[in-house]
C-alpha cells in the first residue's frame, strides 16, 4: 500500500497501486483470451451443423462485414493515438481521439445489430441450428464486450473531464485502451475464422 512514486515513468505507472491494477488487468485479459478461445472451439465443433437451416453463404453480406471491420480496426488506431496524446499530457487531444474511438465503436455496434436483425428476418435465429447458436453467442459475446466498453469508457471520460489527467485517471484510460485493443484482436479472429472461412467453406 506504500505510495512509492516514480516520476520518470509514464503517469499511469507512477504509483505502485496503479502498476498493480495494470498487471491485474493484463491477467484478466488472459482469462478473456481463454473465454473467447473456448467460444471459438465451440464454434469450431458446431460450425457445419446447419441442421437444414441457412448456411454461411446464405447469410453473410461481406460488404457490411468489411465496413464493420474497418470501423473497428480504425477505432483501435484512434485509441492508440488517444493514449499517445495522453503520454504527451494533452488532455484535449486525448479526449478528442477517445470520443472518436467510441463513435467508431458505436458505428460498429449499430452495423452489428442491423446485421443480426437482418439474419433474424432471413429466418436465422439462434434457435435454428447448432451452427447459428454458436455463431450468435460468439459474436454476441464480442458485441456485448464492445457495448460494455463504450459504457465504461463514457464513465472514464466523465472522470477525465472532472479531474483532468492524474495518475488514477491516466491508469483508467490506459486500461480501457488495453481492453479496446483486445476486442479488436478478437474481431480479427472472428472476421477470419467465422466470416472469411465461412464464405470459402
Amino acid at each position: 500500500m506504500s505510495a512509492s512514486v516514480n516520476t520518470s515513468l509514464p503517469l499511469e505507472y507512477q504509483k505502485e497501486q496503479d502498476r498493480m491494477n495494470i498487471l491485474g488487468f493484463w491477467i484478466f485479459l488472459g482469462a478473456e483470451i481463454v473465454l473467447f478461445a473456448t467460444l471459438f472451439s465451440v464454434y469450431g465443433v458446431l460450425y457445419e451443423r446447419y441442421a437444414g437451416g441457412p448456411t454461411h453463404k446464405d447469410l453473410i453480406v461481406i460488404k457490411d462485414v468489411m465496413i464493420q471491420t474497418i470501423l473497428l480496426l480504425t477505432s483501435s488506431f484512434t485509441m492508440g493515438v488517444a493514449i499517445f496524446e495522453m503520454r504527451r499530457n494533452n488532455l484535449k487531444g486525448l479526449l478528442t481521439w477517445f470520443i472518436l474511438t467510441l463513435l467508431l465503436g458505436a458505428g460498429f455496434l449499430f452495423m452489428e445489430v442491423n446485421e443480426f436483425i437482418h439474419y433474424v428476418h432471413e429466418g436465422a435465429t439462434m434457435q435454428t441450428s447448432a451452427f447459428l447458436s454458436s455463431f450468435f453467442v460468439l459474436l454476441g459475446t464480442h458485441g456485448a464486450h464492445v457495448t460494455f466498453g463504450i459504457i465504461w469508457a463514457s464513465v472514464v471520460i466523465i472522470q477525465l473531464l472532472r479531474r483532468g489527467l492524474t495518475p488514477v485517471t491516466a491508469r483508467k484510460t490506459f486500461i480501457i485502451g488495453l481492453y479496446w485493443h483486445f476486442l479488436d484482436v478478437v474481431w480479427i479472429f472472428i472476421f477470419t475464422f467465422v466470416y472469411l472461412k465461412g464464405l470459402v467453406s
Partner: protein
Amino acid sequence: MDIRWNEILITGDPLILGSQIAILLTMIGVVAGITYLKKWKWLWTEWITTVDHKRIGIMYIIAAVLMFFRGGMDGLLMKAQTSRPEMGFLDSQHYNEIFTTHGVIMILFMAMPFLIGLMNVVIPLQIGARDVAFPQLNALSFWLFFSGAMLFNISFVIGGSPDAGWTSYFPLAGKEFSPGIGNNYYAVALQIAGIGTLMTGINFIVTILKMRTKGMTLMRMPMFAWTTLITSAIIVAAFPIFTVALALMTFDRLYGTHFFTLSAGGSDMLWANLFWLWGHPEVYIVALPAFGIFSEVIATFSRKTLYGYKSMVYAIVGIALLSMLVWVHHFYTMGSGALVNSFFSITTMLIAVPTGVKVFNWLFTMRKGRIKMTNAMLWALAFVPCFTIGGVTGVMLAMGAADYQYHNTLFLVAHFHYVLIPGVVFAVFAGLYYWWPKMFGYMLNEKIGKWHFWLFVIGFNVTFMPMFFLGLNGAVRRAYTFSEESGFAPLFLLSAIGSVILALGFAAFCYNIYWSIRYADRNISSDPWDARTLEWATASPVQHYNFAKLPEVKSLDAFWYMKKNNEGLTLKDSEIEEIHMPSNSGLPFIMCVAFGIVGFFLVFEWHILAAIGALGIVAGLIYRSFDYNDGYHIHVDEIKETEKSWRNVEGEVHNHVS
C-alpha cells in the same frame, strides 16, 4: 413471463417441510439474537463491509463449515437410503437431487472456500504484506461466492434442486429431459460464484508477484504461497471455460439454443468436454493449496526445512501443466478411439510422477526430524497413506482399456473420495488446527481434537474402503437402491456405519470449536508452534495492519532464520511510521444482493425482472468507478499502543507464555 406461484415452494415431502420449518426458525432466531444483543451495527461495520483479508478469510471459513454441514447431511441421507436393499427412505428423484447437491456443495462451496479462506488469512502474512493487491475486489469475490452459494442452497426448498449430477451431463441436464427449474439453479448459481473465484485468482497472482516484502524472492516463498500462486494461475486458465460452459447451458435451457441438445445439430459430448476441461484443473485447484498446507505443517512439526524445496516447486508447476491435458480420462467410454484414449492414459499416469515426488519429499522432511505429534501433524500423517490409496487407484482408473470396467461404478466414487477427503479435508483440518491461534489468539483443544481426528479418519476409511469392493463387484454409482440378490448389502451397511462415525468426527470438530471459544486459554504466545514462516512474526490475533514494520527476509523459512540469528524481532519506536490502509466498503455486499436477486429471477426465467436487476449491477459498477476513496492512515501513536500490548518491554516478539 407467467409466474406460477404454486410451484415456488416445494411441498409434499416431510423431510423438506421439516427443513423449511427449520430454516425459517433458524433465520428468525438469528435475526432475533442479533437484535437482542444489539449487534447489527457491529456486524455491518466490522464484518460485512470489511476489506481486511483476515476477516474475509474467516468469513470464507465460516461459510465453508456451514456448507460442510449441508453437504455432509446430503451424504448421510444417501448412506441411509443405501444402508439396506430396497430401502424406501428416499425416492429416486429425491436421491438424484441429493447426490447432485452433495457433489456441487462439497467441491464448490466447501472445499474451495475453505482453501480460499485459509489463503486469505495466511498468504499476505506469509509474504510480509499488509493486505492483498485489491482489497475491495477481494471482498467482492467473497460476497459473490456467498451469493452463489446461498442461491444454490435455497433450491431444495424453493423451486426444486438440480438433479442431473454434479457434472450435469447433457442431454439429461437439458430442458428436454429436465424441464423443471432445478438445473437453472446449477447454471446460474455456479456462474455467480465462479466470477468471484476468477477474481480471487487474479487478486492472488498480483498479490504474490508484486507485494512480497523486501528480500523475499520467489524461491524464498513458503510452499503454501507457491501453491497459492500456481493455483491462482490454474483458476485464471480454467474458470473462463466453466463460465462459457455454464453460459451455453443457460442459453440452451432458457433461450432454446442448440449447443448440447440432441436435436438441430447440438453435441451433448461437447458439454462433457467443456465441463472436464475446467473440472479436471479444478481438482488441482483444490488439491495444490492443500499440498501447500501439508508442506507447512510437516516442516514445522518435523522441525526441519522442507526437503527438496526446488523439486516441490517444479512438481507443482508440472502438475499444473499436466492438469490441463487429462480431461478426456473422465469419459474414456465416449468412444474416441484407442489413440486418443491412450494419449490421455499416458498424460494421466504422468501426473503420478510429480505427485510422487511430493509424497517422497514430505516423507524425507519427516526423516530424522524431531516430530511433534500435534493435531495438525496427525492430519498430515494420516493424509500420506490415505491419499496414496487414492492415487494408486487413480492410476488404475487412468488405464483407458481397464476403465471401461470401472466406469460409473462405486470404485470411482471411492477413488475420488480417497483423493479429495485426505487431499483437501484433512488439509483444511490440519490448516485450521495450525493457524487457529493466528486467527483468533487461542488454540483449538488438542484432546477433543484427538477425538475429532480418530473418529473422522476411521469413519472415512470404513465409509469408503467398502465402496472399492462394491464397485469392483459391479455396484453402479448414483443408483438409489439395490436388490437383496445382488449381495451388496453387507458392504453397503458397513459403509453406512462408517458414515455415522465420520459424522461423529465432524460433531467432535464442531464441539471443539465451541469448547475452545468458551474455555481455551487466551494467554498464549504469538508463536505457539515455534514455527518457521512470517505469519508467526506478528501478534495473534493479527492486528489489522499485519506488520508494524515490514519484515526483511534473508533466507527460506524467514521467521526461523530471524529467531536463530536474533534479527528483526525487535521494534524501536523510531521505526514506526504511518501506515496506509484501505477503507471499508458496503458495495461488495450490495453487489452480492444484486447478483442474488438477478440470479433468482433468471432461475425462474422471469427475464424482464432479471434485466431490471442487472441494471442494479451496472449501477454498482459505475458507482465503484466514481469512488475515489483512497483509504486512510493509521497514526503512529495508535500503532505504538497496539504493538506495546503484545510485545515485551524491549519491543521483542513476545515468544513465551508468561
